[in-house]
């Protein structure tokens, strides 16, 4: 009986957490579309999420594109010039660009959001916002959601270009492929559905990363240990949700 009670408590706790996250997301999104807005804070978050994530996302993309080309070459050899270009483009734009960029941003930005908002929570700064007639959802959550949803697709766009460049560099300078032919194969391989699905994924991943960062920060308890736990939870939950939604969006776009 005790075993069943433990399972029951765990199950209820999971559903309670899911419910809390859904309510938090709904309130956050409501404040994203309802004035007053904080353009200064949105811009600040856009720079933090977009501009400062460029180096890490760019590095990840160029090496991933290069590795894709290397691995494809080991399978297809010199006869697979067009196929290698195809694998790199599809791999980067459909999956690896958005997923790796999302994971990198989850580690960099999601953790920072949880730590910053968590510290504000445990030092009563969020309570101070309320006493100063400022809605914390509007001031802290909405600007981060808006900025992440807007900036992740742009980051992925950059990651796509740099990733394809990584494959191009390896193919041309290591395998000795003809650059013009490779670029033409790359262009021919690019399909609008795959490209758009990557950008849609990026927007959803941006939302998930910001949601998990703000949610866990907002609900952190205790002192430094609570903030540390919130940061860990933000990165882990954002990464898992990101992979889950990657599957769902891929299924929606390509199942048929």
């Amino acid at each position, binding site marked *: 009986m005790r075993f069943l009670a433990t399972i029951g408590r765990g199950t209820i706790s999971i559903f309670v957490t899911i419910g809390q996250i859904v309510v938090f997301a709904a309130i956050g999104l409501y404040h994203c579309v309802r004035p007053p807005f904080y353009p200064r804070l949105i811009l600040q978050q856009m720079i933090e999420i977009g501009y400062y994530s460029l180096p890490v996302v760019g590095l990840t993309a160029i090496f991933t594109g290069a590795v894709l080309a290397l691995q494809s070459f080991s399978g297809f050899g010199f006869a697979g010039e067009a196929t290698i270009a195809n694998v790199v483009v599809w791999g980067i734009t459909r999956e690896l660009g958005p997923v790796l960029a999302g994971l990198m941003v989850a580690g960099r930005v999601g953790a920072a959001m949880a730590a910053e908002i968590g510290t504000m929570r445990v030092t009563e*700064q969020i309570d101070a916002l309320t*006493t100063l007639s400022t809605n914390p959802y509007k001031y802290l959550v909405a600007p981060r959601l808006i900025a992440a949803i807007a900036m992740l697709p742009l980051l992925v766009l950059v990651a796509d270009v740099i990733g394809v460049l990584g494959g191009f560099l390896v193919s041309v300078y290591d395998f000795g492929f003809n650059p013009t032919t490779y670029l033409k194969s790359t262009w021919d391989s690019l399909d609008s559905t795959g490209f758009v699905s990557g950008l849609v994924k990026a927007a959803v991943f941006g939302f998930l990363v910001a949601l998990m960062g703000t949610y866990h920060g907002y609900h952190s308890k205790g002192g430094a240990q609570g903030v540390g736990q919130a940061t860990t939870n933000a990165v882990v939950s954002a990464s898992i949700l990101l992979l889950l939604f990657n599957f769902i969006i891929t299924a929606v776009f390509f199942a048929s």
Partner: protein
Amino acid sequence: MNAPGDAPKISVRDLHKAFGSNAVLRGVDLDLPAGHSLAVIGGSGTGKSVLIKSIIGLLEPDSGSIQIDGEETLGMSPGERERVTRKFGMLFQGAALFDSLPVWENVAFGLIQSQGMRRREARQAALEAMNMVGLDSDIADRSPAELSGGMQKRVGFARAIATDPDILFLDEPTAGLDPIMSNVINEIIIHGVEALGATTISITSDMVSARKISNRIAMIDDGHIIWDGPTMDIDESGNPVVERFIRSNVQIFQD
């Protein structure tokens, strides 16, 4: 005192709040007329902070009634609650200054965000509020992390009074400060409250501070107000719990 028939500025009736099985407030009743300065005293965990946070709206009580200017605040919509909150100013125990903003923007926060004042005018108003609490304009552009604990409290108090609130809440204003700095903060509070003419509720475990900054004291113990009266009468309360609290406070101070 209020004229007969006047609604008190703050009225609390049969307020209950529990966290799980831990009942913190067990039927608190409190009336505070406009312009009065009340110090709520009591040991740790007796419900002082829960009471003040319930009045402000940071915590939702389980039952009871809280009226501000005769208006029931429990069950208010977020918009109505925001309107009532504009009457409040609050000094937090740890000052709760925003790390990401310089000192002047902390002080001017309420003016810019809730009153829509332009940044240039808000900065000027912030400098005036800082001047009222004895802070030099040189520190206006510093980060709060660069200030000492006493200066952070002063900035926190300047932020609380910058919006010219009707009601001031002070959470342990002298906690963590040495006796000299505590005295400075007490003086600043007395002058600030006088200048504003605000109704004030302070929660404190420091009897020296309570005697200085209030004209009325209420002692909370085990979730109830067990004594409530003029500050000058606290030593003749006739309540053994109050007497024990005062004695232990004197003992700590002497130690």
